[in-house]
């Protein structure tokens, strides 16, 4: 399979965006956004992870099978989060004991 050649410009740009996001994460940590603290931090983290997967791991230029593997993994993470939250978000309703 022919390897897709990515210009170094792309890598430097992505690296710069990742650094900027890291800076943002640190800056935001100094503001109390209430319940949005976690949302803000996780949003930036997900954005960073997506960039790494797409560009540094070459998924953007990969086959459909690779995409299926990536999306499958994300879906499985979704199962872990969704079913765990089915407990945490409904605990106030009633628990045993």
């Amino acid at each position, binding site marked *: 399979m022919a390897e897709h050649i990515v210009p170094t410009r792309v890598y430097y740009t992505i690296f710069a965006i990742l650094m900027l996001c890291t800076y943002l994460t640190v800056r935001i940590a100094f503001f109390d956004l209430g319940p949005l603290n976690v949302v803000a931090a996780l949003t930036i983290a997900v954005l960073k992870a997506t960039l790494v997967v797409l560009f540094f791991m070459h998924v953007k230029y990969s086959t459909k099978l690779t995409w299926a593997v990536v999306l499958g993994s994300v879906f*499985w993470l979704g199962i872990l989060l969704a*079913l*765990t939250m*089915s*407990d945490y978000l*409904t*605990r106030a*309703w009633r*628990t*045993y004991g």
Partner: protein
Amino acid sequence: MTTALVPARHYLNDGYGIKSWLLTRDHKRIALLYLAGVTFFFFIGGAFAVLIRLELATPVGDLVSDETYNKLFTMHGVMMVFFFLIPAIPSVLGNFLVPIMIGAKDLAFPKLNLASWYIYMLGAAFTTYAIVTGGLDTGWTFYTPFSTVASTSAVIPAALGIFITGFSSILTGLNFIVTIHRMRAPGMTWFRLPLFIWSHYATSLIMVLGTPVLAITILLVAAERVFHFGFFDPAVGGDPVLFQHLFWFYSHPAVYIMILPAMGVISELIAAFCRKPVYGYPFVAFASLAIAVLGFLVWAHHMFVAGISVYAAMIFSILSFLVAIPSAVKVFNWTATMYKGSVSWQTPMLYAIGFIGLFTIGGLTGLFLAAVGLDIHVTDTYFIVAHFHYIMVGGTIMAYLGGLHYWWPKISGRLYNEWLAKVSALVIFVGFNLTFFPQFILGYLGMPRRYHAYPPEFQVLNVLSSAGASILGVGYLLPMMYLTWSLRYGRLASANPWGAVGLEWNTTSPPPTANFAEPPEVTWEAYDYGSPAVVEHV
């Protein structure tokens, strides 16, 4: 039936000396390295079980102290689950057979395969270090906050051992997935694959998707213990139940890592010894995938009394019941395969029949545990212990031994003593039931697990259980002895001693290093015992 005897060159004599084994990239030799490893840790885990059953022969704690007892059942669980049950069938039988069954020369990544074995042994070394330097007393489940705050035992080396060995599992799974996708012989379509391959494919998906979660969780336990981070400590905003969610997200599917390959073995055995294609092949194949997927949706049935919400408990209860459907599909289809089959009662078939009965009991008692009300009654009692031993020992080990006997002529090129093998299969079946059936009753009557003493009225059933364990122990030692004996003194095996269908029987016993003299081409359907072309081929 093919009568070719041992070829001049085969994988066992293609290179001599310790180096030729420790640096091998041949999947068959690596399978034998795993066989040595898992057998060793099986007997270590078994030794702990012997001490547990000896202690429980009397109601008072008179053989070991309560603290030592805690360590015994923990180390029994850790050794058996992580270093025997999880790797046993995939790493030994799977490693040996997956490439041969699909007509490939080797796995896709032979060096990675060898690395997997080294990683497994490194993980085992860490855990063994934990055992010899004081042991571990957290239970194999590492529940917080006991494991992070209270336990004074060797939690960190044991946890690191399990963390490390997890990578062996991930790499093996990855290797199988790529091999099955990319290296099938011409004509070996997805629906001509043996069901052993389908089940290993499903198992590999669980290994790859689930094991990283366990690795991270165990690492968090170690980090919390050392640095007091507070992931699971309520005093600093953590939650001990979060540990259980993360742990069981892997560890419930881990049960399917143990049982799915076992089901693959049983499909092969039933077809071969009934001389029939497996009834409803596509349903059995897709049932493997369904079990792999549904297995990820049920974990919190281990946590009904841990403080999870009623709403979540109901969701997990319903989802847990769903797993029974593909499991039942398999059991019914194996039974239907036997119907009007030309059944021959050789040793592997005895194990297969034993598996079906014991797995059915284990599976049906699993339904008790999916029902929230009944689960609360039997949680943390011997009912649970009996249930999971029916699945893991009655299921996985029966299938592992059945598979080992079935493919032993292929692996070693030798035949074992059939009479002794039948006797030991029977001894194991009787010993197993005598050990674990009384535990269902004990648990239902309220005897809790993980205590070294119990009320005197439970003694009769406990003595029965301990007596059964000694019979079971003899049953496990017998194959160890006659299989080892057969390596030197057993009669030479033909290429296809069972007259079975499948690519592994189309090569010599033992196979050459490259598996086949010529690259095979598949022109027949799976288990096509009725077809004249296949009969002629066999």
